[in-house]
């Protein structure tokens, strides 16, 4: 039994440690940092979705913001007033399904149009969505948007009070509570997306991206898998939309613009196409950067404090310049993104280790050729 435990610890030790660390953070960080974390988690869920579509299946989508909006507004309308006023947990699930259904409605196009051309086709969705959000006042609240009803799970509400909660001397407000919700949803995303990518559908999508011809003669139904990738990606976007709405506590149409879609593409490019961990890293980078720069604007050179308005660069613009530069640097020097960079660093460290510790009698009788070439563990 203890053997099993140690082997699990050896294999999963890193992720366990990370999970414990993430769970402990609300006890030490204030609301500002927790909010950055929340937005990052929501963005990571959305980025995993678009990573599946654009990174793994090779289908460009500029319509991700639309599906985020469907998730966010779907939740607000379903759980709120005016609207059916469903229990918020049910509304959240339905909102994700609604985003999936919206993706399914688009699947006649998504299944047939390939690569860059799909990007152009999905562009229409963003503009259409934005227009509907602005004009359908009774559902969306128009230009001013709507406030988001708080999530409730079995009498426990994700708000400041109700019920009053203090854990280990730390008062648990909305941010602390939502943090754990975000962690759970992100863990779900991580689990499902990795399962998809390492399973039969993931291989079929990779084959579609690399060679449609090879995929089809190997028995992959091209149109069906393209549409399915689109639907799954929309559902992750919907989930991200729900979490974003809960964190913002107010949804407004202008947030779900084309720039948001581009942000999500930037996340997966910076993180590395086709990898869940990469999409997460990219999402944290793109989300946290402008928020951090706004917070520390007064201490940064060349950046004006918000509202000073004397013609210099504000923190948001500065963040955009920075991540534009990051994209250029990544595309030039590490086209496989942060994920590829991490993998190569790890491979280099592993190659160096036997040289520094030649007497190491570790359980690794593999030939050096396979250890350097192989970065993925055995599938059990």
């Amino acid at each position, binding site marked *: 039994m203890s053997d099993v435990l140690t082997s699990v610890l050896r294999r999963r030790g890193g992720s366990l440690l990370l999970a414990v660390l993430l769970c402990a953070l609300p006890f030490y960080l204030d609301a500002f940092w927790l909010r950055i974390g929340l937005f990052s988690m929501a963005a990571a869920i959305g980025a995993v979705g678009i990573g599946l579509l654009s990174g793994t299946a090779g289908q460009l989508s500029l319509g991700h913001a639309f599906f985020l909006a469907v998730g966010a507004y779907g939740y607000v309308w379903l759980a709120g007033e005016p609207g059916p006023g469903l229990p918020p947990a049910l509304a959240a699930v339905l909102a994700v399904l609604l985003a999936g259904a919206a993706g399914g409605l688009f699947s006649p196009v998504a299944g047939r149009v390939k690569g860059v051309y799909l990007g152009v086709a999905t562009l229409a969705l963003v503009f259409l969505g934005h227009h509907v959000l602005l004009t359908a006042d009774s559902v969306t609240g128009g230009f001013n948007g709507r406030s988001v009803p708080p999530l409730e799970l079995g009498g426990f509400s994700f708000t400041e009070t109700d019920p009053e909660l203090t854990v280990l001397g730390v008062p648990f407000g909305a941010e602390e509570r939502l943090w754990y919700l975000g962690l759970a949803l992100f863990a779900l995303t991580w689990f499902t997306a990795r399962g998809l990518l390492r*399973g*039969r559908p993931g291989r079929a999508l990779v084959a579609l991206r690399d*060679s449609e011809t090879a995929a089809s*003669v*190997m028995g992959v139904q091209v149109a069906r898998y393209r549409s399915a990738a689109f639907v*799954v990606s929309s559902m992750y976007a919907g989930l991200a939309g729900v979490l974003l709405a809960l964190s913002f506590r107010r949804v407004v149409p202008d947030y779900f613009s084309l720039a948001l879609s581009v942000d999500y593409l930037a996340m997966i490019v910076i993180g590395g196409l086709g990898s869940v961990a990469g999409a997460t890293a990219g999402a944290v980078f793109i989300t946290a950067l402008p928020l951090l720069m706004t917070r520390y604007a007064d201490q940064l050179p060349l950046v004006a404090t918000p509202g000073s308005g004397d013609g210099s660069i504000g923190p948001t613009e500065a963040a955009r310049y920075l991540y534009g530069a990051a994209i250029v640097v990544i595309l030039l020097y590490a086209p496989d993104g942060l994920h590829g960079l991490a993998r190569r660093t790890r491979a280099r460290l592993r190659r160096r280790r036997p040289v520094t510790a030649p007497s190491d009698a570790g359980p690794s009788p593999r030939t050096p050729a396979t250890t350097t070439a*192989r970065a993925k563990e055995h599938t059990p």
Partner: protein
Amino acid sequence: MTTRTAAPPALDVRDVTVRFAGLTALDDVSFTVAPGTVHAVIGPNGAGKSTCFNVLSGLYRPAQGSVRLGDAELTRLAPHRIAALGVARTFQNIVTTQGTVADNLMLGRHVLSRAGFAASALRLPRAAREQREHLARAREIAELTGLGEHFETPVALLSYGDRKRVELARALCLEPRVLLLDEPVAGMNAGERARTAEVVRDVRAELGLSVVLVEHDMGLVMRLADEVTVLDFGRAIAHGTPDEVRRDPEVLRAYLGTGTTGEDAA
């Protein structure tokens, strides 16, 4: 797990014509691949050999003619349906996908496995078991084709000959009844050629499948093929055993040219 044990049905190509905007790539081509034989399709460059393969695997629709595998009419089916019937192919220019040899071979198991998006995302025990079983079979096929030691190696790191063999192994992973090999030894050195020829002979003997072979290497064709069809400018100009074909005057003319017809051929 599915393994097709029954003898393959005959593959019957009848009067197939393919035109590309005025160019007739295949002109009334007919031949029959008898069950369990190796049938070679040879001919000079541009004779229509690869076009013929693209018709067989459903990538091209012929203007006329039919291709039947047993009772199934292949010309009306999409490529993935033809694959599901047990027709697997390799490509002249290597077409592998990103990832390891194992990933590529598992793609070959696609039509034989069932796990969909939901089952894989939720990692249902059923999907995990299926994946394990198919991985075991893929490993067997890797051993059979001499890729055993490279099973976990990214395809991009393999030599040209090994990558070519990955394609062969991936096609075999489909447990095909008919195997279409488009120049399986092109660009290989003598040792690699001999090894691939051996693999083809072995799998035919062990799995009893039919093989259609397009190849420029006459030595390999003569050694492996039971029957040969010669194409020239889209027409089938000769059929027969390798020995018969080798002596056929039409074939000699197509390959070497003669004084009189060589001029208008050029």
